[in-house]
């Protein structure tokens, strides 16, 4: 069972990482993945994700362990970008390999809900020259509560 958890300070290619993850789990049966990007359909010119070294990666690893314990997975990949990024750049990639589809899909859903509002990241966006800190929406908190 492979667990791969990374922070990336630079742009990453989710298609290439997902293909490599799939290739590392031959005959897995089911592969679900999610890629979050900086949206390009509004006035947001840049997004910045900051993290805190002593907590962030360790927290992501603990999240991955929880997902592996909760769902019947063959492998889990979590990659989260930090730093400043532009519309269209990838923020986060989660991929899960499993024997059956719903374990893979639910693990991705679970990991994303936790990364969104229960992981050590702080996000701000720049609109019209002004940086503004973003907090999770009410839906994000409700989504997270589904797993408790």
């Amino acid at each position, binding site marked *: 069972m492979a667990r791969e958890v990374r922070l990336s300070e630079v742009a990453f290619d989710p298609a290439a990482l997902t293909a490599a993850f799939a290739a590392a789990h031959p005959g897995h049966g089911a592969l679900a993945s999610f890629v979050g990007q900086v949206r390009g359909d509004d006035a947001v010119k840049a997004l910045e994700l900051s993290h*805190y070294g002593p907590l962030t990666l360790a927290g992501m690893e603990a999240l991955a362990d929880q997902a592996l314990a909760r769902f019947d997975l063959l492998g889990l990949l979590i990659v989260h970008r930090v730093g400043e990024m532009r519309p269209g750049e990838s923020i986060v990639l989660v991929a899960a390999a499993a024997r059956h589809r719903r374990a893979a899909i639910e693990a991705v859903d679970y990991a994303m809900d936790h990364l969104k509002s*229960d992981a*050590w*990241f*702080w996000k*701000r966006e720049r609109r019209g020259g002004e940086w503004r800190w973003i907090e999770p929406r009410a839906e994000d908190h409700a989504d997270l509560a589904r797993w408790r």
Partner: protein
Amino acid sequence: MPVKLVFLGKLADLAGVPTLDVAAPLDWAGLIAALPGPLGEAVQGDRVKLAVGGTVLADKTALDALDGNEVALLPPVSGG
């Protein structure tokens, strides 16, 4: 050695600096005293947590940071 405060997210904006050294030892009252105005108010909010040496405190008012400790001030998170 002092205690090093690390401000995350919007708390860094309120602090105007990413880090601040304060005298050790540092308890909760001392922390609030060291953080004037809106920053101190924000840190007292329910949704701000503290970590000492990479461990999040279950009760931030039990802060007891020693020489060389790093104290992170953690506002509500947002990732993904």
